[in-house]
């Protein structure tokens, strides 16, 4: 047992070390300030992918159907707690599904293809709809339980939420399911199970036959969608709602400690921040200076990176500035 813990610690340390090494490598080699953070983000996303894969496969016996929901709940709680203070940092920097979509954007960029913009109104409507979707998934098990009460011993409602037919946490955790999950999957290549966010849930809930078709269709649609529209799923992903919901309440304005800050006086309203935003957040452009209040932003810091005016945009943690916009023209050549 103790050896296992040591082994785990070693693995986690190795992972962390890899991450740090990647970050340092980017900082040393990437001189172009207008893409530095983007590269940094890719490194962190890759490490996060490995980390999430590791956490999810931890203590789970392979090929077991009944997964310990309690572990998922822990993950959920961690993600939630993080959200209160870090906003949608998770979506921008850690989420594996987001990583998939960012990789697709890379492919698109390499193909010199343009992205499409969805109308602002639709974007906002989609953003709002994520709360409806969230509510739907949270209420569904409760409704089902009232329709068909199950004689379960301890706290039946809780049990329904955790182990009933529709487990909202599993749906909300779906974006975390990376390409490869050891114990479940749709396509088996060289004994490795490949899966895709939501694919397994669709099959589980829709039944084997229709579910297969639906899952394939879902994978196709989201892959194509993310190729055309940057981060298309993030526009209405219910997990994003659960993460962002605290930012929306007035009393909790202090809560998102990690936030984007704007200096109104330095801003010339050149509009770069609005265009480069992968989820089309307008607030950074439109709001007056100070703390940017938005629940759409996932703090990927692309706007901060691309802002051509020194000190205008900042990523702040509390009152401490983590990263600020700089004159990215500066060390573009080797220095």
């Amino acid at each position: 047992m103790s050896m296992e813990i040591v082994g785990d610690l070693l693995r986690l340390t190795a992972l962390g070390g890899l991450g740090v090494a990647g970050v340092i490598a980017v900082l040393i080699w990437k001189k172009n300030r207008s893409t530095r953070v983007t590269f940094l983000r890719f490194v962190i996303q890759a490490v996060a992918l490995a980390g999430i894969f590791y956490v999810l496969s931890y203590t789970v016996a392979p090929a077991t159907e009944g997964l310990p929901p309690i572990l998922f709940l822990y993950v959920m709680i961690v993600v939630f707690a993080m959200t209160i203070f870090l906003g949608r940092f998770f979506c921008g920097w850690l989420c594996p599904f987001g990583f998939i979509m960012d990789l697709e954007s890379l492919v698109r960029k390499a193909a010199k293809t343009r992205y499409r913009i969805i109308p602002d109104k639709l974007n906002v409507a989609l953003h709002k709809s994520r709360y409806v979707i969230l509510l739907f998934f949270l209420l569904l098990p409760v409704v089902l339980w009232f329709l068909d009460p199950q004689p379960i011993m301890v706290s039946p409602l809780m049990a329904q939420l955790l182990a009933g037919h529709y487990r909202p946490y599993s749906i909300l955790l779906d974006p975390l399911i990376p390409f490869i999950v050891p114990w479940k999957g749709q396509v088996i290549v060289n004994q490795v199970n490949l899966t895709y966010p939501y694919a397994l849930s669709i099959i589980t809930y829709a039944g084997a036959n229709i579910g297969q078709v639906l899952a394939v269709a879902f994978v196709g649609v989201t892959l194509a969608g993310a190729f055309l529209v940057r981060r298309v799923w993030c526009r209405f992903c219910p997990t994003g709602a659960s993460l962002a919901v605290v930012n929306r309440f007035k009393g909790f304005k202090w809560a998102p400690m990690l936030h984007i800050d704007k200096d109104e006086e330095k801003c010339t309203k050149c509009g770069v921040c609005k265009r480069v935003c992968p989820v089309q957040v307008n607030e950074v452009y439109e709001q007056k200076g100070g703390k940017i209040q938005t629940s759409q932003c996932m703090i990927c810091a692309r706007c901060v990176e691309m802002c051509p005016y020194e000190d205008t945009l900042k990523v702040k943690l509390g009152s401490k500035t983590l990263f600020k916009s700089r004159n990215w023209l500066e060390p573009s050549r080797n220095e």
Partner: protein
Amino acid sequence: MNEENIMNEPVDKRYMPEISRKEIDELKTTMKAASEKVIAENIERMKKADPHRPDAMKYFDEISNLFGMRQEEIQAEKEKGKKVIGYMCLFAPTELILAADAIPVRVNSGWYDTSKLGDRVVPVEVCPVIRSTIGAKMIELSPFMEQSDALISVLTCDGMTKLSEILSDYKLIWGMNVPRIKDSTQSLRFWNDEIKQMKTQIEQFTGNKITRKNLKEAIELSHRATKAFRRLQELRKGAPVIMGRDAMLVNQTFLWDDKLRWTEKTEALCDELEKRAQRKDWVCSPDTPRVMITGTPMFWPDNWKLPTLVEESNPQGIIVADEQCSGERILNDPVGVDEWSMDDMLNAIGERYLMASTCPCFTSKNGNQDRINWLLNKVKDWNVQGVVYYVVRGCMLYAMEYTRVKKALDKINIPVYYLDTEYTREDVGQMKTRVEAFLEMLTARVDM
């Protein structure tokens, strides 16, 4: 299109009076000689104001001669088949012109004398920049205007709008319609369409396709120029290492110079200035009142009286910044490209020219708050002690924004002086008194 027709065959002139060839030639010779004298005199005075002027300024002195080397160079390029595309407002997307292997030049006129000629076409109430440009065209004074194969005219102020119509008596004009409320989605969409349209027009006219690679190179070239410009501006933040007039001249020569060479020369100038800053080799006492100029554009060579007065008056002032479309606004903003696809590059160019502009022709929900913010920020960063709000008579938009600028600057306790003038040398004496009084007051404030 019947472009050839417009250019070669005599068209019925809708505005311009018929002037005999002889009169044109006579006026041109006299005014050219006078202008060459003014250029030489301006430079002489700039040299005198700073006895050990940076060596790198020599190049800019040379290029500042509108009838000199650059004109010949453009002529040589033209003979090789390159097109020259002139423009009158900074909104013209020069990156597109460069990408199509054409030469962009700005053709606004700064000649005082020609504004009198412009009076034959438009009334004296009209802004002298417009009248002077008309006059210069009338007698074919401006070499760059004459060399232009087409002119991009952006309909910003009323003057520019009609100027393009008047000039269409001679030249092929491409109008660009600029939305007046800039920060709305539909405005940007509209303007981006104008940019795309301009791209097609330039491609057809020059016969060169604007490819992704060409455009990327052009954008990178303008990035490099902006970088050099910003370096120069950065140097002006500290104690004065360069006279304001010199820096203003450097900025303005960008409008007609070869972009790459300009960048290299400016970088060389910055190298030299950085060394001077290290040696604490200032051009004037660091206590000299620091002045910013804002308002109507000032065009080389004649309309150099205000900067000359400020920097030669007693007590002396030093111009550390300006907010003019003949000055710092030329290069302040880079084209922020997110992805190097044609689509995104064009959008980025559109945004850079429309949204980043602080031209008073715009308004929005906040009014032209962008300009106020820019001024406030400049005052802070460049440690400006007084602002001269320069307006020529007839320049409505700048004149009307004065009240707002004054209120904003009053709030941070920075004195503003409204200086209205004309395209004339007659009021220099009177202006001198006014400028000196203002600088006297600033000196008193600095000493306090």
